[in-house]
């Protein structure tokens, strides 16, 4: 009996992610959920600009590569023309919470029936570790070399907290993938975020606290510790909203 195998929805290719990066875990969780829900043939992914720019090479479903930050708008265009398909975006913190804030907020407010997987690793990974909208106070990055200071770089954004104030958001949960227990919880959240879309509940977002050992200058193990000791206290895990935002029905006449 096979107890552990590659999910069908995950392509048989090596990923380009750095050693110790948790993108691979999250990709796997998404693929497992796609398999378990049996939706690969009807699923359309939207890749971001950022480290996950090549996400389209790692999933077996159809994929489109969006410009930086516009994934929720692109997903809107797809979902509105194909309401019977499953549409998800996979975005990092710079993509979703900086350059794409408007698209994120308005897709959320409209209650677009899509699923957003949001990777928060507190920095711009692909361009080499610059400050992100989620970089924490005091955190050193290449563009906050003296630590993020409130009076200079301003405050970070708590995405789940912000989006949970919008009526169109059905589900916002923050999870982490730094230990087995949290990985399991993350999978449950991702599955719920896809199931909500099948149930037409509105926009679902799962914020995943992730590591970036390369740009943080840490070993993979220390990076996981950083998530536990620094990130989770600042970005508390949990469900921020869970409801049927759209009544499960469209209001089309």
């Amino acid at each position, binding site marked *: 009996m096979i107890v552990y195998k590659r999910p069908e929805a995950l392509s048989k290719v090596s990923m380009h992610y750095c050693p110790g990066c948790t993108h691979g875990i999250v990709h796997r969780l998404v693929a497992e959920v796609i398999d378990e829900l049996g939706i*690969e*043939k*009807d*699923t*359309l992914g*939207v*890749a971001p600009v950022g480290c996950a*720019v*090549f996400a*389209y*090479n790692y*999933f*077996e*479903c*159809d*994929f*489109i*590569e*969006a*410009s930086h930050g*516009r994934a929720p*708008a*692109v*997903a*809107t*265009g*797809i979902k*509105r*023309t*194909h309401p019977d*398909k499953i549409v998800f975006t996979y975005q990092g913190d710079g993509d979703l919470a900086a350059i794409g804030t*408007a*698209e994120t*907020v*308005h897709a959320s407010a409209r209650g677009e029936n899509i699923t957003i997987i949001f990777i928060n690793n507190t920095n711009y990974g692909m361009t080499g570790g610059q400050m992100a909208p989620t970089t924490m106070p005091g955190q050193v990055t290449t563009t906050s070399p003296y630590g993020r200071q409130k009076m200079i770089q301003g405050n970070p954004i708590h995405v789940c907290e912000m989006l949970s104030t919008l009526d169109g958001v059905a589900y916002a949960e923050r999870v982490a993938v730094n230990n087995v227990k949290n990985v399991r919880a993350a999978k449950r959240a991702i599955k719920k975020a896809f199931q909500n879309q099948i149930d037409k509940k509105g926009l679902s977002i799962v914020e995943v606290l992730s590591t970036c050992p390369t740009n943080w200058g840490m070993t993979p193990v220390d990076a996981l510790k950083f998530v536990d000791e620094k990130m989770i206290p600042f970005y508390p895990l949990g469900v921020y909203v869970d409801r049927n935002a759209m009544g499960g029905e469209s209001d*089309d*006449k």
Partner: protein
Amino acid sequence: MAKVLIKGNEAVAEAAIRSGCRYYFGYPITPQTEIAEYMAKKMPKVGGLCLQAESEVAAINMVYGAAASGVRVMTSSSSPGISLKSEGVSYIVGCDLPCVILNVQRGGPGLGGIQPSQSDYYQATKALGHGDMQLFVLAPSSVQEMAQLTADAFGIADKYRMPVLLLADGALGQMMEPVDFDMLHFTPEPEKPWAVNGHGGKRKKNIITSLFLKPEELEANVLERDKKYKTVNENEVRYESYMCDDADIIIVSFGITARISKAAVNDAREKGIKAGLLRPVTLSPFPSEILKKLSDTASAFLSVELNMGQMVNDVKLAVECKKPVYFYGRTGGSLMSSADVLDQIEKIAGGLK
């Protein structure tokens, strides 16, 4: 024959719906807002969708998503909003996706004005986005043509998998003229096996992307697209030639100014000056060949535009310095009269003697 009196903006919207376009994403901006209003009213009645986006940036990216998923889709805006769309347009080109974009031009730069203009000619034909790219640009000159070229735009976009830009202006968008929608001809939508719409377990996954990190791959991609542009340049050039055969002075003018120029040509002929009008209907591909040919018989060219002289440079390139090319234009939202154009013709004619 059932003619209706209708605004240019509304004629575009109606023609789009009749062309099978069921999705419109836009953002209000004068002088083209009637399109969004018309779409919002009509789309629900034909099972379509008009979605007001949070910005032009979002709207063009919704178009990107919809086009990628294989449907006929359009957006519209006016000059400042078109600038915002340029990012998405470049991606749409880079992914070889079909869509229709309308620019109802107003004066610029910056917030500019809201009156008619043709000052986005360069932007439309040279640089509506970064990268080695070309759009298909159609320039209607009447409200009937606004409708027909919209219908044509969907067919061309699908045929070549490229965005088609309709370049109109505030006068064409806002004015009402009789339109006979029964006269329109349409191109059926082809199959789109490349679309991202779920593989259904029946084919390999489709990926739509403009990302090619290896220089040789990107070069191959751009070269392949360039072949398409060459085909377009060979097969799709359109223009109207009016009294050009024996003309000494040929006016080159598109859109609303071509109408004014045509009146000036008639007035000049009455005064014994052999004038003609060459009206490009496609601005990209540009009718260079016919202009080159006409430079054998004509003595001079005059480009008449609502800007400070943009298309005139394409005319010069086409004529290859064989004959003098003059320019006359107004900008900022003012239109010239046919008498103004006639003055220019007479001046040139005087110089030719």
